[in-house]
């Protein structure tokens, strides 16, 4: 079959609209603010071999990870019509335990036409701390582990699996609501792909799915071909793993040969004792994200772009951890540092197109406990924005999410309605962005007053090592976590659990971005 370029472009829109509609269905039906309002989810469409054809991504860290989920599911079970698999095991297709992925096959006329999948961040999946983002020593402490397992068999909900999941979370009602939304999203995707096959026939759909992957590969190769050939190296480090081990270096070498790139993380630290380990899917997502930022925004999100890029991540290292290493921070913290080193290396190839380092952390803040006024348990989770790195053409924005996340904040007024927590300050940290011809963006300060005792989990970075500047620009200021108790400030660690008393103020102060020039 010949490729008609007009039809290819029309199929691009048709394929893209399937995960977009799944995402709209998921957002509409989901229960928790984390999915509904902060949009911490992604949806994608796959061919029968598990190659991703289209993804509606709200969260870049899911980019490279979704195909690995589908491949893990395909590799561990046989699918029939009406089946749906569920998983969160970071060592079998997942990334970290709060991200739960549901995968459904699509059959048309008895033939496998492809798969749809969606992944959403659940506010609690059990484990040693509310919010399931503790500083742990092994994966099993981080929460309930779901290897790929069937949640539906021939259209029937497997109630045993369902009950086990809900019994292992601190917020079963919310989990049930969100999982139902995920199921509905996949069912929507199954119907939509079946409609497409009904309209165009399976051969044509598959023909253009393959053509779209080739097309994305060509676009990516065209981008890489524009980069100068050569070897570009960069290194940076994580502050620590939360257990006193650090700094933990991450090294990368990017080799550009013609229209191919080899990304090699040799020399990166071994996997850590604490929860900062990234599984391979995270590393792949970070690579994917960085190259995605360099190409035009019209490029489809699919695995075709990865064909021109080879990624080597040493097994057992910080960027390709092996069991039973704990991994929850790999997704939210280490992923940001991987982006930092990739951009640092590419800045040598493309000095006029790469910004200085952004805050390089998500400043994960979790607070949980018992709310006496409302008579119920509570779990609050938020990522806090910070300074963005200065660009070769402009200052970096202040107080904005960068790179691997883009979730919304919780309004101060919503906080007071929902939790025994009062926001006292939410403001820019002046002059925390690095100086330069273009200044890095400023970080934020968010002060939370506890009205009851509670446990806080902090998972943050760039508390000792500053976000780098480029082209002579100064680095951004480091962030700080501070406990204000009875008016006295005490420093808190970058990572770890803290017991808070009523009247304590937890002050999260986020890093500035690096300066440029």
């Amino acid at each position: 079959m010949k490729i008609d370029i007009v039809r290819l472009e029309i199929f691009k829109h048709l394929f893209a609209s399937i995960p977009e509609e799944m995402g709209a269905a998921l957002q509409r039906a989901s229960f928790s603010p984390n999915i509904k309002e902060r949009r911490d989810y992604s949806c994608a469409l796959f061919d029968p071999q598990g190659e991703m054809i289209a993804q509606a991504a709200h969260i870049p860290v899911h980019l490279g990870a979704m195909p690995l989920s589908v491949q893990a599911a395909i590799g561990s079970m046989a699918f029939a019509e009406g089946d749906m698999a569920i998983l969160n095991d970071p060592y079998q297709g997942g990334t970290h335990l709060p991200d739960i992925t549901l995968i459904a096959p699509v059959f048309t006329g008895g033939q496998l036409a492809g798969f749809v999948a969606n992944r959403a961040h659940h506010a609690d999946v059990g484990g040693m701390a509310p919010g399931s983002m503790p500083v742990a020593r092994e994966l099993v402490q981080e929460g309930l582990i779901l290897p790929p397992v069937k949640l539906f068999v021939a259209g029937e909900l497997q109630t045993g699996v369902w009950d086990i999941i809900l019994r292992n979370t601190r917020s079963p009602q919310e989990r049930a609501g969100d999982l139902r939304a995920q199921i509905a999203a996949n069912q929507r995707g199954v119907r939509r792909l079946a409609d497409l096959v009904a309209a165009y026939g399976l051969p044509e759909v598959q023909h253009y799915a393959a053509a779209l992957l080739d097309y994305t590969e060509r676009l990516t190769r065209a981008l890489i071909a524009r980069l100068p050939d050569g070897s570009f190296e960069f290194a940076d480090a994580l502050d620590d793993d939360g257990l006193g081990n650090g700094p933990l270096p991450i090294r990368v070498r990017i080799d550009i040969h013609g229209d191919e790139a080899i990304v090699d993380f040799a020399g990166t630290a071994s996997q850590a004792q604490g929860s900062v380990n990234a599984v391979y899917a995270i590393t792949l997502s970070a690579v994917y994200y960085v190259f995605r930022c360099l190409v035009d925004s019209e490029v489809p999100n699919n695995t075709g772009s990865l064909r021109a890029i080879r990624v080597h991540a040493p097994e057992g290292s910080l960027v390709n951890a092996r069991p039973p290493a704990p991994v929850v921070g790999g997704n939210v913290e280490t992923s940001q540092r991987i982006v930092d080193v990739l951009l640092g290396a590419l800045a040598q190839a493309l000095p006029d197109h790469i910004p200085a380092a952004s805050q390089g952390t998500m400043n994960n803040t979790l607070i949980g406990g018992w709310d006496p006024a409302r008579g119920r348990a509570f779990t609050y989770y938020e990522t806090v924005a910070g300074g963005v790195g200065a660009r070769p053409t402009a200052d970096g924005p202040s107080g904005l999410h960068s790179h691997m996340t883009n979730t919304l904040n919780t309004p101060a007024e919503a906080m007071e309605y929902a939790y025994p927590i009062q926001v006292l300050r939410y403001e820019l940290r002046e002059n925390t962005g690095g100086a330069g011809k273009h200044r890095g963006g400023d970080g934020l300060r968010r002060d939370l007053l506890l009205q009851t005792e509670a446990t806080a989990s902090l998972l943050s970075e760039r508390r000792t090592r500053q976000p780098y500047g480029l082209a002579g620009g100064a680095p951004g200021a480091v962030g700080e976590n501070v406990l204000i108790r009875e008016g006295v400030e005490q420093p808190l660690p970058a990572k770890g659990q803290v017991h808070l008393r009523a009247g304590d103020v937890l002050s999260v102060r986020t890093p500035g971005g690096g300066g440029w020039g």
Partner: protein
Amino acid sequence: MRIGVDTGGTFTDFVVFDPASGQLSSFKVRSTPHDPSAAILQGLARLQAHAPRHIVHGSTVATNAVLERKGAKVALVNTAGFRDVLHIARQERPALYDLFADPPAPLVPRQHRLEISERIAADGSLRTPLDEAALDALIAHCQREGIEAVAICLLFSFANPAHEQAIASRFVAAGFNVSASHQILPEFREYERASTTVLNAYVSPVMSRYLGKLAAALPGYHVQVMQSNGGMSSPHQAAQQAVRCILSGPAGGLVAAQAVANAAGHPRVLTFDMGGTSTDVALINGVAQVSRNSRIGGLPVHVPMLAIHTVGSGGGSIAWQDAGGGLQVGPHSAGAEPGPAAYGRGELPTVTDANLLLGRIQPHLFFGGQMALDAERARAAFEQLGARLGLSAEACALGAVQIANAHMARALRVISVEKGHDPRDFTLLAFGGAGGLHAAELARALGAPRVLVPHYAATLSALGMLLADVVKDVSQTVMLPGDTPFPQLEQRLAPLLERGHAELAAEGVPVAQMQLHASADLRYAGQSFELNLPFTPQLLADFHQAHQQAYGYHDAAAQVQLVNLRVQAVGQTQRPTLPVYEPDDAPVEAALLGRYPVRFADAQVETPFYDAARLSVGLQFTGPAVVVRPDTTILVGPGDAAEVDAFLNLIITLGAA
């Protein structure tokens, strides 16, 4: 005599209703962007003197002030610790994969975002008293800095406005134009409330000056202003709450689309307003949908507005080849300058050029032949692009039209399928200069069975101004348990009803024509989104049922929160009914302008072009055909059937021939 006047970028449209004869007439005057009232005066001068005259005006003054960043110099007063809320917004970046895309800069720079020590708790109780002594310094700052308008947004001011009121009265006494958040949007979520309040402060002085000037130029006229909620308001209110008029013109279009669709017997429509650089789409399910979380220029506006979704694809969108060898259309547009290649200045092929090349536009019939089109230039542009892609100029042009349609189909899916509606149940209602050429093919791509092109397609917004009621929206966040006894809820609702009544009375609406619709926003505790339901004693049961319907599940045992109370106060106006026309015996051939070759997906077909003005009621014809109006062109595809209905709307039934 009632006159609807809609100021647009290129034309100012007039629709005139004479109550004595029941007749509607319409015309256009070139807009005068430097002083929009000049075009209005020119248009009015064309009308015979009939007293009294009543004008309903849709204005782009507020919109343009925001989009061009030409509003007032504003200061914002915040609760201490929260001066940067306006900057931080919701902390998300506008584009995931663009390292150079910045969020819109806040309308108030940091040095004019002022803090004052005070704090009200969620239940409205006092936590920290207002530091009134500090106000002098804030007022002095604003005087020194030449601030024109002051916005005030304190935490939980909607629960207890005492502090905002105290600050407002001091600034008013000092001579400032003041917008206080508890008056503009008494609802929780401080960023969106601040954004809406600041926008109001930013556009109100501009709107006030404009409306003052207009009133001075039109002595003896009764003027009302169209709001974005589809209702109208007095100029006084429009100047005070100018943020409510930000999408005044497009709202008029939807009001008229709703009336036309209902009268024609096709109450469920997807509207499709395709212009040169962008396309507006909206869903009307009997009534136009209201959004309470719109944006203008990237900034949130949370007062109720008719829901309109805009995509950056239009007649001026440029076709180009990307690095992967693909054909793309947009998002770059040739705009008005240089415009499509055929206009004689641009070099790049656009969607309009494609339509010309395909024979769908005939140069001598375009805009009544008043606008010279260079068909050879359009062909050359597509030949160049086609050569790079290995396509003929015609194939390339056809592809560009199909790809533009794919973009717009996706926008229409966003407002229908993604909201749980099936396009197969809807009629595509097309208006705007370029809409008619694309509507039938677009409807086919969506599975919509028919297309409706209104008789007033070219002046639909101005018609909507004549069909609008006076509409006032009042709201209040209350955050009460869902099982609060109904009499207690009624007590909380009473002040909203009073305010709605008072606002209508202030507009001169007689009590007999007032309608007050009360509703409430509910959610399960822990959710961050609400469902809006009519305010009745069965509110709670209705909520569970509505949740089941909208999201597929409910939980009768779960705790429910009643978040907001709302009142929509409607003052019904005496509105014109759409005139019904009589059939005459003129055959379709009487309207024939000529036959020209038109390129379709399968073949090139000799196609009749008809003059819309000579197509009378009841006429039926089959495609392929092209209907030409002075301001727009409508394509009827091969296999489609067209009919002129009693309102002179053109109805195209797909695949019915």
